């Protein structure tokens, strides 16, 4: 299986090329080809693995050279981060990289010697992650080539460092592949730190003051998680005499006391990566970066790394205090951030909060740790990756054409920029409307939460689902409302490569909706089988058939009723304005008898549930909960 080292190393090679090649045209060409190669490689990996029987496979037992290379790279990373911290006078943050790196170096050189084991582990979950990272990530790079061209055309004040930007994107992909395929905890730690630092550098790309501030916030939060991860690994290395992730999970499932603390610490680290409360602010701050990097951070890579780790640990968290803590924080985040999302009118901010909120639901699913919740979580992850990537790219493209990304300005987008509006519609509908992603996830999450008597989670899900519907529906309503814009029509200046990426995403989204029962049977059920060792039919046949029927209905009914109603003779009249219409639907007569522009706006409740009002209190609550529960877990295990 030489495809695996290729998959990990190839993006790093391309990253170096990106940095080296300065003429834009040549670099863009290389980026396209490389993205295509990556997509092809992951598909090849997945297909060949499935054809080979889809068994768990392990590789690379003897890896002395690779170990040393990774060790050296880790030290270099530490030096780079320390340098940047000192340069920007954030001295204390450097401690968060120096300490864990020293611990890892010590472990590698003087740590307990264990029997040799495989360093690469392939199963359904890691292949799925590879597919998400490779396909979505590759498409984002295709999109980024066009987007960044326009970006630097518009933002002449920002130095054009596209070579650096694309280097980071590829570095990110390489790190993600390494992360999801590794079995050795020391390797995992390295790739973990690499994704943290890549996201830090991406957020700070524009070098503006706000970008630098936000990037350091992202850095310290993620490095804090990395420190917890390192402590967890070290503890496990000495108590469990092992560096293998699966051994850790096995020890956790068997109920060994020494596994409790590492599992809790690694789960804590995953919370920072998945931007759960109280660590949500870094992901919100990340939107100052150019859109492709937000798309990458939110959909395919960074945050999914946290979810991946939690899914891996899920069997070891089922029914214990760590699982309860994770489910609690996830449920809380799901509800609270969906409430805050209502108050946002900036399209990207709505997306950011909805990402955190959806991640919260996935985290809660992992925390409950039952087969049906993992089933739901996996589907949620797939749906979310595609939908969020689509939406971020679409909002980015809309912003270029509309010169605004405010949801209020998207009133009547369907008539202004029809293509982009339809993509946006597909992305949003795929996320929350029956019978798609959220719905099946909610169904099984609710069931499992009830089964595991997790009453708080049940209540969070019920209330959170109401608020989630609210902010999505009002956005959808904005898109389809008849335009009240006057003046020049907007021109769709979306580049061809951006369109290609968007179209593929939309097609994937629809395909996924139609094929998900099949996917569940062929892929996700075996995944659960691997993870829990028991085959469970998550979705009873009755529900499955109902779902399929509903899917067909929701697609077919609007089409048929459209065809049916198209021929109804309608006398189109002006809308009701109390008799003070001006002559079109865009203005009315004001109290001076002059025409006044009509402007329709959504509810936001800024003052009641704005970010400024809610963020700090909920962060405090979450911090307190985390602290108390971590103390309880660690205290109970010592």
């Amino acid at each position, binding site marked *: 299986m030489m495809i695996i080292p290729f998959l990990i190393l190839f993006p790093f090679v391309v990253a170096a090329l990106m940095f080296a090649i300065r003429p834009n045209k040549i670099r863009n060409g290389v980026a396209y080809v490389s993205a295509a190669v990556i997509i092809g490689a992951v598909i090849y990996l997945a297909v060949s693995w499935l054809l080979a029987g889809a068994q768990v496979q392990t590789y690379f037992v003897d890896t002395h050279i690779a170990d040393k290379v990774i060790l050296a790279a880790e030290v270099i990373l530490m030096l780079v981060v320390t340098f940047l911290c000192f340069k920007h006078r954030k001295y204390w943050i450097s401690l968060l990289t120096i300490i864990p790196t020293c611990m890892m170096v010590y472990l590698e050189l003087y740590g307990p010697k264990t029997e040799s084991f495989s360093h690469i582990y392939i199963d359904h979950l890691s292949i799925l992650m590879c597919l998400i990272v490779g396909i979505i990530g590759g498409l984002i790079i295709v999109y980024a080539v066009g987007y960044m061209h326009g970006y630097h055309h518009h933002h002449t004040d920002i130095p054009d460092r596209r070579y650096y930007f694309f280097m980071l994107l590829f570095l990110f992909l390489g790190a993600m592949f390494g992360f999801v395929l590794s079995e050795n905890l020391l390797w995992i730690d390295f790739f973990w730190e690499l994704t943290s630092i890549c996201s830090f550098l991406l957020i700070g790309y524009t070098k503006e003051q706000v970008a630098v501030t936000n990037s350091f916030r992202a850095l310290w939060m993620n490095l804090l998680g990395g420190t917890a991860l390192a402590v967890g690994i070290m503890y496990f290395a000495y108590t469990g005499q092992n560096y293998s992730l699966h051994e850790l999970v096995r020890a956790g499932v068997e109920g060994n006391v020494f596994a409790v603390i590492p599992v809790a610490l690694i789960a804590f680290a995953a919370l920072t990566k998945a931007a759960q409360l109280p660590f949500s602010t870094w992901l919100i701050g990340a939107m100052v970066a150019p859109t492709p990097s937000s798309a990458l951070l939110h959909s395919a890579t960074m945050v999914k790394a946290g979810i991946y780790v939690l899914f891996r640990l899920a069997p070891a968290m089922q029914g214990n205090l760590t699982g309860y803590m994770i489910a609690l924080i996830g449920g809380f985040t799901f509800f609270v951030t969906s409430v805050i999302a209502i108050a946002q009118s900036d399209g990207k901010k709505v997306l950011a909060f909805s990402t955190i909120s959806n991640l919260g639901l996935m985290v809660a699913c992992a925390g409950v740790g039952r087969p049906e919740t993992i089933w739901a979580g996996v589907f949620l992850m797939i749906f979310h990756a595609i939908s969020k990537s689509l939406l971020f790219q679409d909002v980015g493209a809309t912003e270029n054409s509309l010169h605004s990304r405010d949801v209020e300005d998207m*009133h*009547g987008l369907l008539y202004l920029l029809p293509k982009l509006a339809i993509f946006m519609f597909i992305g949003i509908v795929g996320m929350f*409307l*029956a*019978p798609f992603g959220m*719905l099946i996830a*909610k*169904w099984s999450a*609710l*069931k499992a939460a*009830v089964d595991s*008597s997790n*009453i708080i989670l*049940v*209540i969070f*899900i*019920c*209330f959170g*689902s*109401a608020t989630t*519907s*609210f902010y999505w*529906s*009002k956005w*959808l*309503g904005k898109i*389809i*409302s*008849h*335009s*009240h814009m006057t003046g020049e029509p907007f021109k769709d200046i979306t580049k061809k490569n951006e369109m290609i990426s968007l179209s593929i995403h939309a097609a994937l989204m629809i395909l996924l909706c139609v094929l998900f029962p099949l996917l569940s049977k062929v892929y996700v059920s075996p995944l659960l089988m691997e993870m829990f060792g028991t085959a469970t039919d998550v979705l009873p046949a*009755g*529900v499955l058939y*109902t*779902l399929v029927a*509903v899917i067909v*209905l*929701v697609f077919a*009914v*609007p089409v048929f*009723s459209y065809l*049916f*109603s198209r021929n*109804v*003779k*309608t*006398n*189109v*009249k*002006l*809308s*009701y*304005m109390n008799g003070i219409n001006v002559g079109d*639907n865009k203005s*009315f007569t004001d109290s001076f008898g002059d025409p006044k522009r*009509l402007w*329709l706006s*959504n*509810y936001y409740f800024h003052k*009641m549930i704005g970010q400024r009002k809610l963020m700090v209190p909920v962060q405090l609550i979450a911090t307190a909960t985390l602290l108390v529960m971590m103390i309880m877990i660690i205290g109970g295990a010592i």
Partner: protein
Amino acid sequence: MNMFIRIIAYILLAPIVGGLLEGIDRKISARMQRRVGPPILQPFYDVIKLFKKQVISVTTGQSFLLITYLILMIVTGIMFYGGTDILMCFFVMSTAATFLYFASVVSSSPYATIGSHRELIQMMSYEPAVLLACVGFYLATGTFNVSEIAQSQISNIAYLPGFFVAFVFILTIKMRKSPFDTSTSHHMHQELVKGITTEMGAQNLAIFQITEWYENVFLMGVIGLFIVNSNPISIAVAVAVVLVTYFLEILIDNTSARVKYELMLKMSWMVTLFSAGVNLLVLMLVQRGGA
């Protein structure tokens, strides 16, 4: 076989039952206000007349959205009376409700837009109680399946009084009855300008009306589900409870003044949390003790 009879009965009879309920509703309301009131069959006359009128609309897109609303609502009822998963029924219902929102907001008319935004707030107010009611049924019977729930040994209301209270409370919101009718009126001439239906006329308004009937019959079915058990007599009791509940809604409608949406949201969430939430807590504790 039985299932098909129930489904067909629902498709055919629901509009008749729903229309009659509305006719009685209007009659009783009129009597409460010391008016004579329209004949009981008046809703049917209205709808027939609406179908005969010329279609006038602000936008052509509206009618297909409304037809989708109607069909999805019928599907909700079919799924419910056909005895499938109750959670799925409500998911389809919320999808249907979203189409109603689209049908109204697509017009970009100021009154309709305000009405539809308020409708969204109403949806947000009632959804938690609806989902919790499903959770309640699941806890009490161990299944989400409607036909199995209906075959319980004892009426589920014995286990779920709190959920029942919460559900009846949000029923007022769902049926857009005063004091929670913000989405249907915010204008002095309420008969002319009715929030979410402002820009719906003729055939479109008739479709909306019929959908309401289907919806009410579905919702009353859920109320009945709290009562029905394996004993056939319970069906008669269920019908009686449904009628009493409906009368209660009419009474509330006629004796209370409209509240602002903030208060509606707060009240419904509080009632949901304290009534259904406490019931949920007790049920879970009892089950854990039993197990």
